């Protein structure tokens, strides 16, 4: 039996190419709007060589993939599953579509659906978590389309532009995922 978790209709998930992909990563990081959706800490920029060093020295066991388009093999973003807890069978997911041309068109949603298949069928996880900023409505819709459910609001956790913003917690159980995909 052969299983392939990582090839979809719109995207393929491919491990990072250290030589080619980090230049793109550095370029995406210049987009402050993207950075503000991706992380709550102050938007910073790092050279591709420094990112490379960081990844090489990183000892976590997360699974990082670059998102490639099926149509022309363009690298448009990344998705990562990590922070595993093997007793709770719980993990965290993070995703960023760095190329603005490919946002809001279903590429991120399909990437997430592929990753959830890998998480539940490949890794036998019980649940997957994510955080999303309350102002990121597009991402919240995308996560709901994958079967994630709202689990709470961390009040006033982000402080930008002299305003406080909430962070939303979402989660998906294996049973949610099976029901959602009618497995």
């Amino acid at each position, binding site marked *: 039996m052969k299983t392939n978790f990582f090839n979809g209709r719109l995207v393929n998930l491919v491990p990072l190419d250290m030589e080619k992909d980090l230049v793109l990563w550095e370029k995406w990081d210049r987009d402050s709007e993207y950075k503000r959706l991706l992380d709550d800490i102050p938007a910073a920029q790092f050279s591709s060589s420094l990112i490379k060093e960081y990844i090489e020295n990183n000892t976590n066991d997360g699974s990082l993939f670059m998102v490639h388009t099926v149509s022309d093999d363009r690298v448009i973003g990344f998705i990562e599953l990590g922070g595993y807890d093997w*007793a*709770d069978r719980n993990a965290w997911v993070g995703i960023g579509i760095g190329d603005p041309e490919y946002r809001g068109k279903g590429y991120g949603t399909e990437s997430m659906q592929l990753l959830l298949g890998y998480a539940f069928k490949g890794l036998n996880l019980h649940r997957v978590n994510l955080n999303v900023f309350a102002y990121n409505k597009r991402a919240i819709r995308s996560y709901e389309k994958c079967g994630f459910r709202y689990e709470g609001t*961390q009040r*006033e956790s982000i402080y930008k532009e002299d305003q406080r913003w909430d962070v939303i917690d979402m989660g998906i159980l294996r049973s949610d995922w099976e029901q959602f995909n009618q497995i």
Partner: protein
Amino acid sequence: MDTRSLFEGSLVVWTSLDPEKDAAQLSKWTFDPEFVRHHFDGVYRPYMVSEIKKKFKEDLKKADERRQQYYFGIREKEGERLVGLLRFAWVQAALQYAGLVLDFEDETLAEKYFDETLEMAMRYAFMELNLHRLYVVLPGFDVDAIGRYEQAGFLRETQRRQARFRDGQYYDELIYAILKPEWKDRIKEKQQ
């Protein structure tokens, strides 16, 4: 300026943690999976004294360099026996939030010292670290801790369904938080 000590309560004192002196005791605490979860990565196991020394020396050094973690040993005022460990974790100065990680050696000591330590921790968080938000992550099975944080004014914000596995079954994981204006209101109410 409030001239009361940040570190001295009526029952407990906050002091530095000393890996050399405290390691033997901390090693015993690692038989509690929750304590280990608060300080170690990876799959749960107890840790031996030499590992504890190395680990906390490194963590305290990093904490000093990066100022994102603040550790305090909680000691009984009489005799200064270490009874708990307190850490302000993931302190984000730009965002004005931090997590609170607080463990006592056992339930009897928590019963005695938790409430005062938490009052002191909130003052330190809002008046010294200048935070806006202080949060704590609790397993659904720890009903004693849940009650104490609720009593102190923390609100339940998030319920991660079945995120924690303990003794053969799943429990929810909860996020509780208190914001600076809420804490100030409570202080005012008490003074009235």
